[in-house]
């Protein structure tokens, strides 16, 4: 977890999913009990004009949550509000990025409000596949007494 000072404008260290693995989509479909074949059946996806299966939305969001957890700890996330702008396909290279836009205090704890996004590409030619905001408890959830 990062110990660096958090202030407006702070760039969250990016988190990379170098290769969206279709095998993980199959496992995810089983966990979710998701019957939508675009996530695991190439025969179903071809009539739609694609030759690669489409990643699940929750997995796309997970890359941003992984970035936030790596930054401020595994129980730091307070809110996620995201919008999906493009489908993500097997084999895609993705990078989650974020920036602190505001800091407030609730019950004596500081929280960072962040813009977050998920970019597809190699850092040169990229398109944005998910955008949104997040609220993160700075320093993790030290109020957690549920253990």
């Amino acid at each position: 977890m990062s110990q660096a000072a958090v202030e407006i404008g702070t760039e969250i260290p990016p988190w990379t999913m170098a290769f969206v693995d279709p095998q993980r989509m199959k496992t995810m479909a089983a966990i979710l009990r998701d019957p939508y074949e675009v996530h695991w059946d190439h025969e179903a996806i071809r009539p739609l004009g694609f030759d690669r299966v489409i990643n699940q939305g929750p997995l796309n969001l997970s890359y941003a949550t992984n970035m936030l957890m790596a930054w401020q700890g595994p129980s730091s996330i307070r809110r996620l509000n995201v919008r999906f702008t493009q489908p993500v396909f097997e084999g895609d290279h993705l990078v989650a990025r974020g920036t602190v836009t505001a800091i407030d205090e609730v019950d004596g704890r500081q929280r960072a409000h962040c813009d977050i996004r998920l970019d597809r590409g190699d850092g040169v030619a990229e398109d944005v596949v998910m955008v949104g905001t997040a609220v993160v408890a700075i320093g993790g959830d030290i109020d957690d007494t549920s253990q």
Partner: protein
Amino acid sequence: MSDSSTGAAMTEDELHALVGQRFPGGTRTIEHWENWLLTDCTGFEQLPDGLVHPIALFHVPIQGAGTSIAELFEISGAQGAGSVGLDGYDWEYFTPMREGVEYRVEGSITEVERMVSDSGAIADRFVYSIDLTDPDGVLTARITNHWRIRR
């Protein structure tokens, strides 16, 4: 997909009648194996102290509320591959979720909207919201998911 893949498109009146429809409700416990596999799918290291990966807030509320993705497709009248799109999620975490805790889960369909493009294509916004509370009755998380059903 469900049998609705051969059914007629939902009318606008039928669509609006969905608002307020409650899911059966129920309880849901996240097992260690499930959380392990889920976390592995995201490419992240396993979390300490039985913490549940935040992404569990997609399927756990749906299943805990006594419904399923398949049933939501059927309720919303989704018809075949390519007809369902994800518009977005709004998820709130009030306390950390943990493996082995039996959460109470309740929710309903909260909003719908029929949209017609300039070319005449129809798509319906389908929104549902679900709450999770812990065994002490404390609100643990709330999700609101926005789907788009192409007609």
